[in-house]
């Protein structure tokens, strides 16, 4: 398969479990070396020049990359420091609808973790935001929040690629859609 | 039996020599056979 996204586009990837959505996103996020073929971002190869691409990309997936023994604000602060980003923690938490809590992440509910993980992936202010099942484990409020955040980012020029089982929710953000079947792009059923 | 060098010279000890040589041959031949066996298994 081969596809191109323009800057500021929002693309939806759909398909059954095991159709290759997550693998594709991980390749785009430089988490996985493509066995075959290649992907570029503004002409720069995503894998061979991954050092240059990584500051511009952000992947939000089921792996939250949070440290369980630290509190939510601490997690965000450390990630911001590691990347050298402005640690505007309270605004970030507010954006994803979390309060400033000092309990360790271990005590958080599944939905709260998802929101915190989303806040973490937004710390970078990425040019390309990859969302893997962003609506999973979230209540209707949470889903609306994700749609809202995604639309805001898109308006400010961020490119979005969303892999999801819920095309109806994602349709509120995306205007393009690719349907995958066994690793190949097929017509939307 | 071996008498541990009372006057400096060790006497006898052929049983140790034979142990050493036979072990060497068993190990080397055994490894060679295992290589042959594994190569055959891999070829199938």
């Amino acid at each position: 398969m081969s596809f191109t996204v323009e800057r500021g586009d929002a693309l939806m990837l759909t398909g059954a479990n095991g159709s290759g959505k997550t693998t594709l996103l991980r390749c785009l996020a430089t988490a996985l070396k493509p066995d075959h073929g290649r992907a570029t971002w503004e002409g720069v190869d995503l894998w061979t020049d991954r050092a240059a691409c990584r500051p511009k990309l952000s992947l939000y997936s089921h792996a939250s990359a949070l440290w369980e023994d630290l509190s939510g604000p601490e997690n965000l602060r450390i990630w911001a420091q590691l990347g050298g980003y402005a640690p505007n923690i309270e605004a970030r938490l507010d954006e994803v609808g979390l309060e400033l809590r000092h309990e360790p992440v271990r005590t958080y509910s599944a939905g709260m973790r998802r929101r915190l993980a989303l806040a973490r992936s937004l710390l970078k202010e990425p040019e390309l935001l990859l969302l893997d099942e962003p609506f999973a484990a979230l209540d209707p409020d949470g889903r609306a929040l994700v749609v809202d955040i995604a639309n805001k980012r898109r308006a400010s020029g961020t490119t979005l690629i969303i892999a999801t089982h819920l095309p109806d929710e994602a349709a509120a953000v995306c205007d393009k859609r690719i349907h995958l079947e066994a690793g190949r792009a097929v017509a939307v059923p | 039996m071996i008498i541990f060098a009372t006057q400096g010279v060790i006497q006898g000890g052929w049983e140790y020599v034979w142990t050493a040589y036979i072990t060497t041959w068993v190990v080397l031949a055994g490894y060679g056979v295992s290589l042959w066996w594994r190569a055959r298994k891999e070829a199938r």
Partner: protein
Amino acid sequence: MPAGYIFGVVGLFIFALTALAATLRPGGVRANWEHGIGLYALGLLVYGQYGGLYLAPPDTWMADVARILYVHVPAAWISMVAFTWAFAAAFGALMLERPKSLPVLSAATAVPGIGLIGLAMALTGVQRGLAAFFGILLILTAVECALLWIGNRFFNWTSDTLDHISEASTEVGVVLGVLLLFLGSVFSRPTFNVYWTWDPRLTASAVMVLTFVGVSLLRSSVDDPITRRTWSNVATILAYINIPVTYMSVKWWRTIHQLQSTPDTLSSDMTFWLRLNAWAFLFLSIWFVARRWRIARARALAEAPPELPPAPEIP
């Protein structure tokens, strides 16, 4: 030239000839070319062991027990040699992932290497030894990089080729090392009256063998081929570099003096048989490595993913 060397020269000649013939053969490499050196090694081994048992003179102090040396010492030397191959191949496998850097690195190590050797000529004492050591190390690196470049350019060597050689050499080294430890124990019973002494040589060998057993196990417990290659090559390099440090540390730790088992301290008749057996072990291990390399290559082919059609170009 001492009499023992002629057998080595003949063996290396056979090896070079068969390898060259196999490489230059039109229509690809013929399987089993390494049997030539294997048969030669077997013949040498039978002759050498017979000589060690019956033809060599008994030692002045250890009498007939010293005959164990004709298997013990070659096992020690050649297990070390096999680990050296494993190290050199692991380094090569890492370098061949970036083949373009090879000529640069070769030149960048050759120049200071030659400079250091020149410096060593002018120096004396410890400084001379140090300069010579690092000079030789750099020149060896330069030579290996040059060889890797030639192999990559003209003989289609890849990272995988050398990784398989490293895998094979590690296993052969471990087999010889285990044999060495057992023989050392058999030898030490009549000479020191114990099965095991904590002398530096013995302890360092045991640690060395255990380290490489660990490397082999690491290799067998990683599933992804490329990850496995990188990890085990790095582990091989670290394990090899650790050998001299281990030896130094246990030497300082317990120093029980022990007869030196180098040819210089033995009578010339004994050195002849020692050399002969060492050559036999060397060629036998070359044969083993070659056989084991084929198995590793066959396994890699079996687990390789199926070929995909070429990817479309990105506009």
